């Protein structure tokens, strides 16, 4: 599929994301997006869902935040939710969107999930997150399942269908996603790298890790695939033609600046973080902390 058929965020959407407009700092937005994608990934594994559906969900999730603010959506979307969860916070709803994206992507890829399974898995993942933050974090984690006919289940179920429809509405039903895997294999063949198992595996891994960044909403697939190959080949010390006029990425119509930028997005995922910084995003899943954070933020804006 030609690159220009893939929907990408517009320059204005990138420069000023709705969340940033609402005063959410860019690095916090980035962390929350990455955390949401990680949860989608973990849920996908626990549900034994196909990777195509998981990757599609992560890309839809990233696209969504170019149309919607985490703050505005949290308190702006469904009044019914607010009535039932007066304490429900934007980050909780971020999780709803993640859950909704996975639910929707599974339908798009013709491997639908049962709502109950999906909800239970997300409940488990969020309980595990709160456990990691609780003072008793040294104790072994024990999952407390929700009641089968309890309110929690029905509330989450409502939130799930709302989230799904919100994604469709805000993306204008434009839910076509092009996954990079086929292109990677193609490029590795062209570059004669298929015999290097380590290079293949590493590039494949970078593509998957890139799903936690916004790059699939920003750049065409050939650029992202070239970036994954660049990272893999540099880390393994494999030399590829890189002298001007015969750079290998030119072959794939991938502009160097864009390839380099994608590499930056991916490598930022692995940067050293202070433990406190690392916990910040987890802590924002908790209700009280986010409310506090929002209030502080509201004063600022």
């Amino acid at each position, binding site marked *: 599929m030609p690159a*220009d058929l893939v929907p990408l965020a517009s320059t204005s959407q990138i420069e000023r994301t709705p969340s940033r407009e609402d005063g959410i700092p860019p690095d916090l937005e980035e962390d929350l997006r990455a955390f949401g994608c990680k949860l989608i990934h973990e849920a996908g594994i626990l549900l034994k869902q196909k990777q195509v559906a998981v990757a599609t969900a992560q890309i839809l999730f990233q696209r969504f935040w*170019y149309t919607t603010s985490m703050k505005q959506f949290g308190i*702006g*979307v469904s009044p019914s939710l607010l009535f039932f969860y007066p304490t429900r916070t934007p980050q909780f709803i971020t999780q709803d969107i993640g859950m909704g994206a996975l639910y929707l992507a599974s339908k798009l890829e*013709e491997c639908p999930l049962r*709502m109950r399974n999906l909800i239970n898995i997300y409940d488990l993942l969020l309980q595990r997150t709160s456990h990691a933050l609780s003072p008793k974090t040294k104790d072994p984690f024990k999952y407390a399942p929700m009641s089968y006919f309890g309110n929690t289940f029905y509330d989450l179920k409502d939130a799930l269908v709302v989230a799904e429809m919100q994604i469709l509405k*805000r993306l204008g039903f434009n839910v076509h996603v092009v996954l990079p895997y086929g292109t990677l294999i193609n490029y590795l063949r062209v570059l004669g790298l298929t015999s290097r198992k380590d290079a293949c595996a590493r590039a494949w891994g970078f593509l998957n890790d890139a799903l936690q960044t916004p790059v699939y909403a920003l750049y065409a697939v050939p650029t992202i695939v070239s970036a994954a190959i660049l990272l893999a080949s540099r880390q393994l010390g494999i030399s590829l033609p890189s002298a001007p006029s015969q750079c290998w990425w030119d072959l794939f119509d991938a502009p160097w600046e864009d390839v380099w930028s994608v590499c930056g997005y991916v490598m930022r995922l692995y940067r050293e973080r202070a433990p406190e910084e690392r916990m910040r995003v987890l802590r924002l899943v908790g209700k009280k902390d986010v409310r506090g954070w929002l209030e502080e933020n509201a004063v600022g804006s």
Partner: protein
Amino acid sequence: MHEEWSHTLLQSDPMRFYRAKRDRLHQAVTSKYTILGFISSGTYGRVYKAQSLEPDGQIHAIKKFKPDKEGDVVTYTGISQSAIREIALNREMSHENVVALKEVILEDKSIYMVFEYAEHDFLQVIHHYSQTLRIQIASQVLKSLIYQLLNGLVYLHSAHILHRDLKPANILITASGVVKIGDLGLARLIYQPLQPLFAGDKVVVTIWYRAPELLLGAKHYNKAVDCWAIGCVFAELASLRPIFKGDEAKLDSKKNVPFQRDQLLKIFEVLGTPTEKDWSGLKDMPEYQNMKRLDTYPNRLAEWCQTRIRSQQGYDLIRQLFAYDPDKRLTAKEALAHKWFQEDLRPTRNVFFPVSAHHLPPQRRITQDEAPSMMGMPAPTQAQTLSQVPLGHGQAQGQHLSQQSQLNLSQQSKPGSTASFGSVSGGAVGSFSGGQGGSARKKPRIG
């Protein structure tokens, strides 16, 4: 409580307050269209004939999806898989021989797809000729019908879309005699590997039009399944009855996919039992062993065509559409270039051109809806209304410009253009599952 909430909201988030208000003013389906009557229903939901309240008063077909069920208890499980797939594909397409989607309206947990209206369909035409007129379809009309059908299919296939459910009831004809391929609920983009048709979805594909590779359990299939279906439709138009009218073997209690013995026999009776000479991959088909146990038949297609198609070239076309080996089967493009279409009498733009007025098929019958709760009721209260997602096609777009200036239409994606997200990013956001708070929340409780 609600009042208090909206007051604090006005201060804390005026944008949201504005949106909530705007959503209350949003128009319901019944405020944009007059429902003229009920056309048909299926597993997906119901179809209505409706007239736009715009000055042009255009006629549309509105397809209302019924909520999906999960398990034994009826619960709302979000948009149905076929609805989302149909919408996602349809919004990208524009071709004279493919039915056009004008807009999608989301309202009170229902999804309405507004299509251009087509007065007739192939099934109705077949019925008209076999029951009322009791004559064969004139060969020029037959040729025009198949030509336009193939023309639409070439478009779909060139856009890498498989229809997967071509049958007379899904192929429409407008009052001006233009063929429109409809119902893309099972259609999908061609990625490899394709999911087996029977996996994952509850939708039933009519077995009479199913290609032999699917009947023999192929895990992979391609565009050739649509070309087989066109051969079946062609034969049905010529003889006014389904050519391979087999009985479908149902899934057993363990959801094992059964061997479709009867359908295969119906095919073999006409086309003969396939051999490895016809189809080199035959012995690798999962159901090959089952197939070998069936009686063998000679090929009698030429004989079958003699009285029904009455043209050597017509016979040649159908023979090639019925090639057992999917790789040898004619593609839609090849079929469109077939000599039969260049022979006199040539296909016409209006398929009914040679048909005298009193032989034209009747207008589509519409009835009063026996399930009045679905539509045609007094307009739903404004607060139930959600939002409208306009599609970036000509006229519908124009209508929306005047109605919803806040919609960011400059970002509407057109086929082939760089699209950014959120073609409705400026659009409705607010009262999703009921603007009036909890009262719109309907959920069946058990226990």
